[in-house]
C-alpha cells in the first residue's frame, strides 16, 4: 500500500510541473462549459419542461458534468499501450508491485492534482458565469457522492479493459477513440439520454455508460425520486462487480501471455 501511495505522490508532483497544461485545460473546459450552457438556454427558450427537466436544472447539469468530466480523466489505456509498444511491459511485470495498481495509483494522483487545479477554478467560473450548481435535495448528497465514486471506478475499469486489448492488438489508438465516443455520446455527458426515444434509452440503461455520468448527475439535479435512485444504483453496482470480474480475469490472462512468451 505504501508503495502505491508513493506513486500517487509522485504523480501529483509530476502533474504540478506543467503549469501551462493547467491553464490550457481550464480555458478550454470553460469555453466548452459556457458553450453548452448557451446551447441549452437556446433550446429551452420559450419552453418550460422538456424531458421532465427545466432549463435551470439543465444548467446545473452542464456545470456538474464539466466538473465530473475532469474527475473521470484516465490515462491507463495510453500507459498500457505505451508499455506494450515499447516492450517495457515484460520488465514492468517483473517488478515486485502490481503494474495495474501502479496505473491506478497514477490516475488517482493525477485526479487529486486536478481537483485543485481544475475542479475548483471551473466550479468558480461556472458559478459566476452560468449559475451556482446547488444540489436539488441536500439529503441526497450522500447518494450522489457514492454513485459518483462508483462511476469513477466503472470508468477506470472500462478504460483499463480497453487498454488491455493492446496486449494482442499492440496499437489501440482507434479503440481508445471508439471508447471515447461511446462514452461521450452514450453516457449522457453531453446530451442526457432522457431526450432519446424511449426504446433507445431503455437499451442504453442496460449498458454501463449511463451509470458513469447520467446517474450521479440525475441525483444531483433531482430528476426522479429516492427509490428510482436506489434501484439505478443497484444496477450501477452490478456493473461494477461485472467489470471487476472481467478486469481480474483479463489481468491474469494478459500477464500469463506475456510471461509464457518469455518477456
Amino acid at each position, binding site marked *: 500500500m505504501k508503495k502505491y501511495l508513493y506513486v500517487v505522490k509522485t504523480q501529483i508532483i509530476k502533474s504540478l510541473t506543467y503549469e*501551462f497544461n493547467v491553464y490550457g485545460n481550464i480555458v478550454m473546459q470553460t469555453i466548452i462549459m459556457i458553450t453548452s450552457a448557451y446551447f441549452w438556454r437556446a433550446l429551452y427558450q420559450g419552453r418550460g419542461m422538456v424531458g421532465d427537466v427545466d432549463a435551470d436544472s439543465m444548467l446545473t447539469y452542464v456545470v456538474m458534468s464539466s466538473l465530473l468530466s475532469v474527475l473521470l480523466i484516465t490515462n491507463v489505456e495510453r500507459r498500457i499501450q505505451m508499455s506494450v509498444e515499447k516492450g517495457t511491459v515484460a520488465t514492468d511485470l517483473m517488478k515486485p508491485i502490481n503494474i495495474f495498481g501502479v496505473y491506478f495509483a497514477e490516475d488517482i494522483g493525477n485526479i487529486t492534482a486536478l481537483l485543485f487545479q481544475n475542479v475548483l477554478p471551473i466550479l468558480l467560473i461556472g458559478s459566476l458565469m452560468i449559475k451556482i450548481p446547488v444540489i436539488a435535495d441536500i439529503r441526497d448528497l450522500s447518494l450522489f457522492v457514492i454513485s459518483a465514486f462508483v462511476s469513477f471506478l466503472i470508468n477506470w475499469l472500462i478504460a483499463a479493459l480497453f487498454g488491455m486489448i493492446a496486449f494482442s492488438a499492440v496499437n489501440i489508438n482507434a479503440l481508445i*477513440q*471508439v471508447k471515447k465516443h461511446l462514452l461521450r455520446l452514450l453516457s449522457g455527458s453531453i446530451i442526457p439520454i432522457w431526450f432519446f426515444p424511449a426504446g433507445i434509452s431503455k437499451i442504453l440503461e442496460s449498458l454501463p455508460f449511463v451509470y458513469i455520468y447520467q446517474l450521479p448527475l440525475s441525483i444531483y439535479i433531482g430528476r426522479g425520486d429516492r427509490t428510482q435512485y436506489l434501484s439505478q444504483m443497484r444496477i450501477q453496482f452490478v456493473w461494477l462487480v461485472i467489470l471487476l470480474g472481467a478486469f481480474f480475469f483479463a489481468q491474469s490472462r494478459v500477464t500469463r501471455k506475456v510471461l509464457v512468451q518469455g518477456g
Partner: protein
Amino acid sequence: MRKACRELIHYLDVTVHMFKMAVMTVIEYPSNIAGWLISNPLQFIMGFAIIKFVVESFGEINGWNYGQLAFLYGLSVISHALSMIFFVQGWFMGYYVMEGDFDRYLTRPLGVMYQFFFTNINIVGITDLIPGVLVFIYGCVKSGVTVNLLFIVQIIVTLIGATLIRGGIYILLGSTSFHTRSAVDFGQYTQEIMDKTTMYPMSMYPESMQFILTYLIPIGWISFYPAASFLGINSRYAGMMIPFITLAVGVLVMLAAGAYFNMGLRKYESAGN
C-alpha cells in the same frame, strides 16, 4: 522560375511516396483499421441521431428544420474529415515537441511544416468522410436545394476554405507547444467546441459569441454562413460570394498559422543542442 518548378515537382513526387507509405503504415495494424472503420462512422451516425432526438424533443432549432440541420451537419463533417486527413497532427504537436521529434525534420532538406504534416498523413480520416458525404446528400435531398454546376463549385470552394480554417486553428493551437513545451490534448477540446459551433446553427448563441466566432475565431465560416446562404436562411452574411469568403478566410488563417508555426520553430531550434 525553373528552379521553383523543379522544387514543386520534387515536393509532389515526395508527396506521392509519402501517401503510399501512409497507406502501408495503416495496413500494418489490421485490428486498428477495423477499429477506425467502426469508430468513426459510429461517432457521426450517433451524432446525427442525437440531432434528430434533440429536434424531436425541442422542435426546430432557431428556425432550422431537420433537413436543414442535416445539410449543416454533413457540410461540417466533410470538412472535419478533410482536416483530419491533412492536419490532425496539429493536435499532437505538443508530444512531438516534448520528445524532440522535430530534430529529425530539421535535418532534412524539405520544409519542416510540409514534412510534419505530410509524413504523418492520416489516411484513416477517409472513414470520417463517408458518413459525412452520406449525411450531406441526405441533407441536400431533404432540404431541397437545387444541385447544379454552380452549387457543386461553391461546395468545393467552401470545403477547401473550411478545411483550411480548421487546419489553421489546429496548427495555431499546436504551435503554442513550442513556447510552453508541454502537451495539452487540444484535440478533444477543439473537437467538442467545434461540434457545438459548426454542427448546430450559430445563430442560437448570443450576439457576443457570434461576433467572436465570425471575426476573431472564424469558426462560423466553416459551415454556418455557407449553409445558411445555400439554404436561403437569413443570417448576417448571405449570398453567392460566401464560399469565396470562406476560402479567403481559410487562406488567411492558414497563413497566420504558418507564420506562428515558423516563429515557434525558431524558438525550438535555439532551445535545442
